[in-house]
């Protein structure tokens, strides 16, 4: 599978989840069981740089979601 297809698969998988908007990196590893975690994290980081995904941080833990998704983020944005 090529990189573009991998990215598409990530977007589709995240969109299909209706109950969650933020995911641990480990959830992305599960999408690609044959890939090494290091490769998956590089792919995720590339998608963050592209503006498709975004990091969410509590300070101690980092989670990843589709850019703009999630109630809290929208609430924060609307106050800007």
């Amino acid at each position, binding site marked *: 599978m090529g990189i573009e297809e991998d990215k598409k698969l990530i977007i589709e998988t995240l969109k299909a989840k209706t109950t969650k908007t933020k995911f*641990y*990196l*480990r959830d992305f590893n599960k999408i690609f069981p044959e890939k*090494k*975690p*290091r490769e998956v*994290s590089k792919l995720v*980081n590339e998608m*963050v*740089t592209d503006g498709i995904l*975004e*990091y*969410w*941080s*509590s*300070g*101690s*833990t*980092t989670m*990843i979601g589709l850019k703009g998704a999630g109630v*809290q*983020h929208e609430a*924060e944005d609307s*106050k*800007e």
Partner: protein
Amino acid sequence: MTKRKTPMLDELENGKWPSFVSDIKQEAKAREKTNVDLQIPKEVCDDLLDLLELSFTDREGHWKHGGVAGVFGYGGGVIGRYCDQPEQFPAAKDFHTLRVNQPSSYFYKTEYLRKLCELWERRGSGLTNMHGSTGDIILLGTTTPQLEEIFWELTHNLKQDLGGSGSVLRSPNCCIGKARCEFACYDTQQACRAITMEYQDELHRPAFPYKFKIKFDGCPNGCVASIARADMSVIGTWRDDIRIDQEAVQAYVGGEFKPDAGAFAGRDWGPFDIEKEVTDLCPTHCMTWNGKKLGINNRECNRCMHCINTMPRALRIGKDTGASILFGAKAPILEGAQLSTLTIPFMKMEEPFDELKALIEKVWDWWSEEGRNRERLGELMQRMGFPKFLEVCEVKPDPRMIKEPRSNPYIFWKEADVPGGWEREIKEFRKRHQK
């Protein structure tokens, strides 16, 4: 001046210790009459105090949990803080924290500190935390539009990078090392810098199940307490013998030199008693004193450092120095705090630190693959077992890794480790062992 009264916060100023409330009030007052071209609201410290007072009154916090604040290309270094009462406290509605990677051992020029303070006064709240427990310079409170501006100024004008936050390698930290300390068994600053530079990607872009901390102590005195605070503790040690200057020992005994380099001199402890204060306190009883000569059975020394600390002019660390490497401290969720476990008894610590880097990468690959969400390395080691961890590190079990090797030498053997495996010639066995 705060807009409202803050009686509960004021109470915190009454104790005999310095109060963070007084500090914030001081900054609030300074911001009132400053000539600095402030880029975030002047009243930020006032609103912060009022917000805190409200939290005390309501008995609940008014910060939202986490956020998406950050600078382009980095996943760590900025911790989003948003207030859930933005109308009441508009000046503190977003109050993000920045972690700035500290220079090794916290060496600063006053010129640098002035520039840093000037930047934070102008583009932030003026409130800092020097230093956070990871070691970083913590800049407390700024708005979202200021983040990129601050990052640009930090990197271009101050030549200073952000540190780690979230699920990343946190800013590596080290003791003062060879810069000022004769006990340092390796150059902690050199090691800290080398690892920081090598793992920039891991520091800035979250790729781990949870946080990972590396701390470098130059000797077993552990001035950065790496054994308690780091997932990977690198602690200086030596392989040969403690160097003894018998004449200097006599000088301590005769009262010519002050023990502990003159520390604890606030009261009269009486004449120095080498037996009571040094040899009898040796935890492994490996020291002897016959009234003329001090002897050390170095094979039994467990590097407690007490004798060297007490008589630094007479006793010195060995010459063949390096570090012990321990893993897995601090796992507060599962079992409470734990110290790290000795894994590599001795490693030479010399540039380019290839052996150290190879070890780090083996551990990270395993942890990334096997670690659960929010599981620290120490918890994974407990869950999977220490023999598995040794397998990952490609090292063999060693009595030095076991707390009480003589009373608890519990090792599960694998078939591959036993000559001939589990299969054996039963007739041959029965010749030597009856049924």
